[in-house]
């Protein structure tokens, strides 16, 4: 199963329509579940829902082979947590898809992270989706940066007692 998710704030039909086109073009037999936000997008190619309850979302995350998502931190960190590959496609402010272009910055900064695959065009997206069996998941061992954060935070909290 492929999980497509774009968060709940603003719709991102450009990505949903591209995935829809890719399914039509390739005739993939893989089941696709798409969480589309406040959009009335509908398609015979996939199961479409506006939002997903946290419990059901965990189930989808556990069951899917990989995730296609906007370049949102929630999706990326969740994919790393469950060690599933994630293809991210950033929103663009110029197309009214977000308040600003921070998703382009996110895509740039996560391009080298294991398990995170960036597409910014239809061609890049289709090529990643058509080779999805080669995509590996990320999120192995805890990084030193993360261990450092936890010990620093614990330390700061320790010394913040009033």
């Amino acid at each position, binding site marked *: 199963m492929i999980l497509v998710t774009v968060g709940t704030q603003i719709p991102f039909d450009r990505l949903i329509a591209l995935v829809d086109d890719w399914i039509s073009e390739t005739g993939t037999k893989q089941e696709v579940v798409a969480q589309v936000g406040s959009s009335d997008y509908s398609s015979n190619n996939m199961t479409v829902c506006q939002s997903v309850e946290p419990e059901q979302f965990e189930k989808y995350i556990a069951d899917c082979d990989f995730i296609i998502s906007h370049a949102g931190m929630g999706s990326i*960190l969740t994919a790393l947590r469950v060690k599933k590959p994630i293809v991210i496609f950033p929103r663009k402010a110029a197309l009214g898809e977000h308040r600003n272009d921070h998703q382009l910055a996110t895509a740039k900064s996560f391009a080298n992270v294991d398990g995170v695959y960036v597409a910014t065009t239809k061609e890049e997206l289709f090529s990643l989706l058509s080779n999805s069996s080669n995509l590996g998941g990320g999120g192995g061992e805890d990084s030193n940066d993360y261990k450092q954060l936890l010990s620093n935070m*614990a330390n700061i*909290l320790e010394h*913040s007692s009033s």
Partner: protein
Amino acid sequence: MKRRKILAIASPGGHWVQLCRLIPAFSESDVVYACTYNKASELSDDDNYYVIGDISRDSMQRIFSVISGIIKILKKEKPTIIITTGALPGLITILLGRFYGIKTIWLDSIANSEKVSMSGKIASYLAHNCFTQWEGLADERIKYVGRVI
């Protein structure tokens, strides 16, 4: 000495997921969580959890109910530390926390890789501690102490 009690608060999505990455650092403290949607899967039934209204720069109409919701939590739980990963409701909580004399910590989202968020910049003047997750963005008021990945 009063036992340490943390109020950990964040908006849904990436903000919340990043806050949850900090949970292992809370093991020596009592913790109360607050988020703007249903109980998140990262928490267990034993966790103390509040739901608050969501607001952003584009939707301010609920700001007074959000403020009164946060004040209720502060009065009832009497946290000694507030920690937030954003966004706007977290910033408001830091401001309110200062009025109540509570220690406040802001961790800017790792999504802000090229510049610290507007809320983070404001938090750097309001919060006792303000952190970025990008070493290159650190300055006198906003420090780098590690990151969630």
